[in-house]
């Protein structure tokens, strides 16, 4: 092999590896989250509603509901869930006639008191259900709490957002849901 060919080989190999690692450094791969599965038909559920919401929303809430739905998973021990509660509540108040917000309390086995305290402190008025066996979290492929799912009226997933969500991100997804 001529020197130029060999040098070219070295340059190409370096460029390929370099490009790969540059991508690795700048992408979200390192965060370790799984695939977003957009378009997936989200599993239906029928779960018991927290006592304080039963008057308005009934004893159990079921999916599918025929409306676009925002499902937000939280746990009482989750700090960011507390932090994002006001954002969710404010957005709910604006969109409540067009979109259904459901909060799901998951991974809180034996923490009924703390879950109720969470709802007291956050002042959430959209309905919350109890994921009794933590099975809904698994069925939804939850990566952690908080996580928010945007589900179209036909039951397919439009978007999922892991971690606390900002008001702007919420509104953007809702606008798309309502189209």
């Amino acid at each position, binding site marked *: 092999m001529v020197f130029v060919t060999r040098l070219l080989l070295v340059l190409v190999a370096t460029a390929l590896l370099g490009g790969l690692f540059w991508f690795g450094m700048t992408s979200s791969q390192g965060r370790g989250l799984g695939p977003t599965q957009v378009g997936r038909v989200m599993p239906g559920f029928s779960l018991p509603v927290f006592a304080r919401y039963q008057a308005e929303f009934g004893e159990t809430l079921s999916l599918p509901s025929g409306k676009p739905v925002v499902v937000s998973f939280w746990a009482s021990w989750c700090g960011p869930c507390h932090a994002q509660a006001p954002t969710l509540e404010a957005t709910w108040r604006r969109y409540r006639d067009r979109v259904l917000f459901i909060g799901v309390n998951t991974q809180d086995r034996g923490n009924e008191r703390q879950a109720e305290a969470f709802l007291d402190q956050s002042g959430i008025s959209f309905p919350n259900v109890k994921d009794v066996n933590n099975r809904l979290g*698994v069925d939804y*492929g939850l*990566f*952690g709490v908080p996580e928010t799912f945007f589900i179209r009226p036909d039951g397919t997933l439009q978007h999922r957002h892991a971690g606390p969500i900002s008001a702007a991100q919420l509104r953007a997804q809702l606008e798309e849901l309502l189209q």
Partner: protein
Amino acid sequence: MKLLVLILLGLVGLGQAQEILLDQRVFEIGRQLRCPTCIAETVADSAEGISGEMRLIIQEQLVAGKSEGEILAFFQERYGDWVLLDPPRRGIYLLVWALPVVVGLLAGTLLLIYIRRGQQQAAAPLDVSSDEIERVRAALRQEG
């Protein structure tokens, strides 16, 4: 938890009265699943809550008679291909299975070629020019 214990007693097959909460097979299957909320741990070995739930689910499904393939498929439906630690053999993932074989064959072939060439070079007489032979003869004559 206690309910599970009662259900499990017969199906483990050890024939002794033990309160087995999670059977060995749970860990074997768990070792093939990625813990979804951890950075890089398996469902078998992670201490996080979600892994504990998944282990319980695996136990229940084993008791219900599901096979390993069915249990893995259960989680694959919910979390995507990503949750399987053994990449499925289709599409682009085939590369990771195919490349070792391809490279292995290539390496083996190159090795054989290299050795064959080396054997030929060892067997071939050295290439010496007639000038050099004359020089050696002259030097030998000098020494007498």
